[in-house]
């Protein structure tokens, strides 16, 4: 029985430049702000940033895992409020947690929190999943 107010276990994803390249190739989004440091800085960004949709895809993985598989995610939304800044060497965290806000039969609504380097990167991040 899933109860309103239940907290999902926090999970940390690690994002590095290699992952940005993999996601760019898999998604077709080859915008240079996600791969080319000089270009990113030239358009006013602090450094190379992760695709907002990569952040969202990783959060999607988090909720899919909890819900028992990617087929069980029915609705998913988020606002991109701050970029995930990815250093040339090493990696940066994407730390995800969630709270059950509604549970009716098998339909469960989640409010999701996602931070990177201590900064909240998504706002009003929500999902509706069906837990079999």
């Amino acid at each position, binding site marked *: 029985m899933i109860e309103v107010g239940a907290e999902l276990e926090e999970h940390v994803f690690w994002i590095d430049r290699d992952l940005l390249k993999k996601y760019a*190739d898999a998604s077709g989004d080859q915008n240079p702000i996600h791969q080319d440091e000089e270009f990113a800085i030239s358009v006013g960004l602090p450094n190379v940033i992760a695709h907002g949709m990569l952040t969202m895809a990783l959060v999607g993985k988090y909720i*899919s895992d909890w819900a028992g598989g990617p087929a069980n995610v029915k609705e998913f939304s988020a606002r*991109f409020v701050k970029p995930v800044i990815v250093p040339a060497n090493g990696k940066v965290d994407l730390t995800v947690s969630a709270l059950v806000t509604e549970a009716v039969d098998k339909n469960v609504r989640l409010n999701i929190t996602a931070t990177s380097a201590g900064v909240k990167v998504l706002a009003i991040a929500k999902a509706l999943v069906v837990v079999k």
Partner: protein
Amino acid sequence: MLHPDSVGRTFLGANPVTVTQEDISAFALAIGEEDVSVAPPTFSICISLAQSQAILSAPEVGLDWTRLVHGDQRFELRRPIVAGDVLNCDSTIESYKVIAGNEILTVRSDLASKGKLVASSWSTLVVRA
């Protein structure tokens, strides 16, 4: 700036996209998803964003894609996308406003297979002044 006639307009997808197992597996692998029997929940963005770019950058619509930032994103999934799906993507510019020189628009994309809706998504896009 966006041509005002474009707001509220629906652009019918001209070229259906066939989803392959390789497409799904590459996307899943990138995010560490081992279940590749269906596409991950955000997979449809690969199709909808490419089509939005093609539509919105067309000279008669006039959006400057190079100064574009993704503001927010929403998905409603009727069923998971699977390999072999032939998806047609219709895109509608649902709203448009200019705030302090920034153009803010919401594009809705409806992905359908054989006339049946599979997924809808809404992307709020911001063109920085």
